[in-house]
């Protein structure tokens, strides 16, 4: 029988068996349990009795439907534009010989390395009612209202297209150019080669990028909090219900409503992707730069990249300038006061944030790769479920993860609130999906036969993982690490529920400043954070190069 055969295979490999058990235990306690708590809470009324009231309300009252429709519309818009832009960036960086790649790449990662609400703030400074562009340059000639759907789409696209870019960059890099070369040498044009070879091969990447951006947009609450005006989205509605009124049941209900579309999208992707095979790296070394387009196309790429890069620079430049002004909007005398404030008052926050993120990052990265490996390479009962679970925290708005942790780990047997551990755990499991998804996407590109060869020659699963698989997915691993670190440094929505006086975070301080419109302070904080993250980015890029497969082959 299939099932018993599978079980037998697992028992034959004790390491695998123990690892699986450990992974299941971790996912069970830190991913499923908090969510179950939220689900249970959504089914309770005030007095703690079972009740469908929350859900009845969700469907009978228009005010719960409106945020759902708003969120879906926003998510789809941002994901579509973001993926297209991200792909253009990734293609230009990996395939087209244009100048200034490093600058484009660095600038495009700004939105990732900064807390998202910085972009919303820049948008207000530039396009608000009293904005630099709308008021000072256009003299109010255009009736632009940055608050609402349009403004949110702009801000979230800028904030999240880099996610698509980074993940697609990895995918495009791992497509073996030999295939493109073959297509070219067989007489296909570059254009056709792109559509028939490169594009289909990057399809899983494109789809997963779309999903990443979609999920981010759905769960985003920093930007909508600041700039949504009266365009009410689910995450904000849920957040306000929970933090403002302690309506845990309604908030949880809204969050579960937020979860459904994400899970549907996820299932679709899995079903659709599983029908195709995308093996291209077959143990041969890879190089890059084959599909060099015509000059006119190259110029077009350059222009698109320039426009987006200039926009980002303008946004960040405005905030940067703002961080040195005495009082934004009134007194633009330059001073270092805000930075002095950050280092006087915020130094402890900065220290705490770095420590917590630095602890969480490697754990999350290794765990992520391990799960990716198990899921993509091993046959065991509940494989799909394991993957889905590991990706779950991504689909759930941070607010609900935060509340879930608060509900779950505030009572015996797990009393964790108020400790560093709860923040670290949130960082680890919130960011796990990035590692898993990167790992799975990378593994799907690598032919199983390489590992099979290792297994056939007598190496164990563990040996194969450490010696064969891991080096092959190193770029994905490091980009996962980078992501985890950055996301931990800039996380807010989940951790805001569990920060304590003893362990505080820069983002919480920024949110405080932002809430009070102390923009210059928030800007200074953000720039300190950005600076730290950029240092990390260069470190990790260096490491990636050191450990990457390509270099080993080159040696």
């Amino acid at each position, binding site marked *: 029988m299939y099932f018993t055969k599978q079980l037998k295979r697992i028992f034959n490999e004790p*390491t695998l068996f123990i*690892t699986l058990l*450990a992974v299941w235990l971790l996912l069970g306690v830190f991913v499923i349990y908090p969510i179950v708590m939220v689900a249970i809470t959504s089914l309770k009324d005030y007095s703690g009795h079972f009740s469908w009231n929350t859900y009845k309300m969700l469907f009978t*009252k228009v*005010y719960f439907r409106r945020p759902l429709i708003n969120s879906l519309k926003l998510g789809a818009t941002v994901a579509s534009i973001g993926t297209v832009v991200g792909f253009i960036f990734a293609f230009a960086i990996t395939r087209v010989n244009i100048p200034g790649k490093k600058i484009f790449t660095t600038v495009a990662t700004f939105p990732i390395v900064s807390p998202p609400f910085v972009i919303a703030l820049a948008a*207000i400074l530039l396009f*608000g*009612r*009293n904005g630099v562009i709308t008021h000072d340059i256009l003299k109010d000639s255009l009736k632009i209202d940055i*608050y609402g759907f349009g403004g949110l789409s702009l801000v979230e696209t800028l904030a999240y297209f880099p996610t698509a870019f980074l993940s697609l960059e990895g995918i495009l890099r791992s497509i073996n150019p030999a295939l493109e070369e073959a297509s070219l040498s067989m007489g296909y044009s570059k254009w056709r080669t792109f559509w028939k070879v490169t594009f289909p091969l990057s399809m899983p990447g494109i789809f997963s990028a779309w999903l990443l951006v979609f999920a981010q947009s759905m769960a985003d609450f920093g930007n909508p*909090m600041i700039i*949504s*005006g*009266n365009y009410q989205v689910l995450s904000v509605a849920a957040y*306000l219900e*929970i*933090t*403002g*009124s*302690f309506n845990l049941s309604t908030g949880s209900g809204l969050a579960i409503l937020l979860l459904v579309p994400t899970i549907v999208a996820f299932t679709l992707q899995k079903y659709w992707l599983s029908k195709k095979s995308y093996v291209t790296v077959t143990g041969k070394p890879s190089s890059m730069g084959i599909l060099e387009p015509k000059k006119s196309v190259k110029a077009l790429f350059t222009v698109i990249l320039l426009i987006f890069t200039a926009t980002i620079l303008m946004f960040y430049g405005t905030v940067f300038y703002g961080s040195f002004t005495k*009082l934004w*909007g*009134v*007194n633009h005398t330059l001073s270092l006061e805000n930075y002095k404030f950050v280092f006087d*008052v915020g130094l402890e926050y900065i220290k705490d944030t770095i420590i917590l993120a630095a*602890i969480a990052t*490697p*754990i999350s990265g*290794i*765990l992520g790769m391990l799960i990716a490996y198990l899921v993509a390479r091993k046959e065991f009962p509940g494989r799909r479920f394991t993957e889905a679970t590991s990706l779950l925290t991504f689909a759930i708005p941070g607010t609900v993860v935060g*509340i879930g942790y*608060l*509900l779950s780990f*505030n*009572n015996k047997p797990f*009393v964790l*609130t*108020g*400790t*560093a*551990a709860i923040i*670290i755990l949130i960082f680890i499991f919130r960011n796990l999906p990035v590692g898993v998804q990167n790992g799975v996407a990378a593994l799907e590109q690598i032919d199983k036969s390489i590992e099979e060869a290792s297994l056939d020659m007598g*190496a*164990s699963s*563990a*040996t194969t993982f450490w010696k064969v698989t891991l080096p092959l997915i190193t770029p994905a691993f490091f980009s996962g690490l980078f992501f985890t670190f950055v996301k931990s440094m800039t996380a807010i929505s989940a951790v805001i*529920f569990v920060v*304590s*006086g*003893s362990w*505080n975070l820069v983002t*919480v*301080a920024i949110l*405080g*400043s932002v*809430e*009070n*419109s*102390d*923009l210059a302070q928030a800007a200074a904080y953000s720039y300190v954070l950005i600076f730290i993250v950029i240092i990390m980015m260069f470190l990790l890029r260096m490491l990636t190069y050191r450990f990457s497969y390509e270099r080993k082959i080159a040696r």
Partner: protein
Amino acid sequence: MGKFKEVLGVKKATLLLLGVLILATLVISAPVLHMYTALDVNEAKIYIEAFEKATGIKVDWVRMSSGEVLARLEAERNNPRASIWFGGPAVDQIAAKNKGLLEPYKSPNAWSLDLAFKDYDGYWTGFYLGVIGFASNTKQLEELGVEAPTSWQDLLKPEFKGRISVAYPYTSGTSYTILAGLIALMGEDEAFDYYKKLNKQIHHYNKSGSACVTQVGLGEVTVGIAFAHDVIKKGVSKGYPVKLTVPEDGTSYEIGAMSVIKGGPEPELAHKFIDWMLTAEAQSLMKNWYRVPLNPDAEVVEGAVKITDVNVIPLDFVYFGQQKDRLIERWKTEIQYGD
């Protein structure tokens, strides 16, 4: 043998992971006072640093709007992480008291306080007074050709349509104080009718009560409704083109309060903080934020709006503390999510 080594390699990595996790959990800080404060970050640190200096007790604090503090206390009911709730209107602390989230403490330094400014049983203790006012952007008033609003009805002027901001009454103590004041002034149904009209004038809602002041200063909105001390501190005194007016037909007010959280880890330190905060030196620090202290020996800064200077609506804080959940629910149904 090779296989064994590799397995060992995995174990080593796992052990390392576990080690890091355990280490992380073991990083325990020295005993300190854990605090939730609803005061502005920049203001809270003035008192906290002075307290640390005066007593040698370290304070670990988190800033949240008072509605959020209340929500947090409810969430942490079985395992409270903080010992003191510092700042924010007494109404919210009365709501917390009614939910059984606070424990009484009668500070010896509070004996001289009028009974209106503290809880009879000591569940909360007031330390300042604040009145609600309007912040208006003077440049935009000029452009629009209107005077700064001086009554609640003025806010309904067509010129102000889409140009007012205020906070959600459930996240913000400021905003709940406004709602309570309107109800006391007009009667509940009339107040909600008024708010429905006001809602049409509102550009957006904030989470924090004082956030609208800077928005007015920056010109994002023309008028904001907030506490007078926040308007002066964050608007006028900073150099923004902001003008403060107080509704002449009657304005709402708060008693800013502090309370001891039930079952918090360090009640004695919380008591010490409350004692200290009621002293004249501590209360005099409030001049930095244009607040009006309750200790008669404390300095009052010039420009601060005293309760005797304006037309204040008498408020039954106990009633509004008890009715908070119901009034908020009504506000959400009829205003925020109404048509």
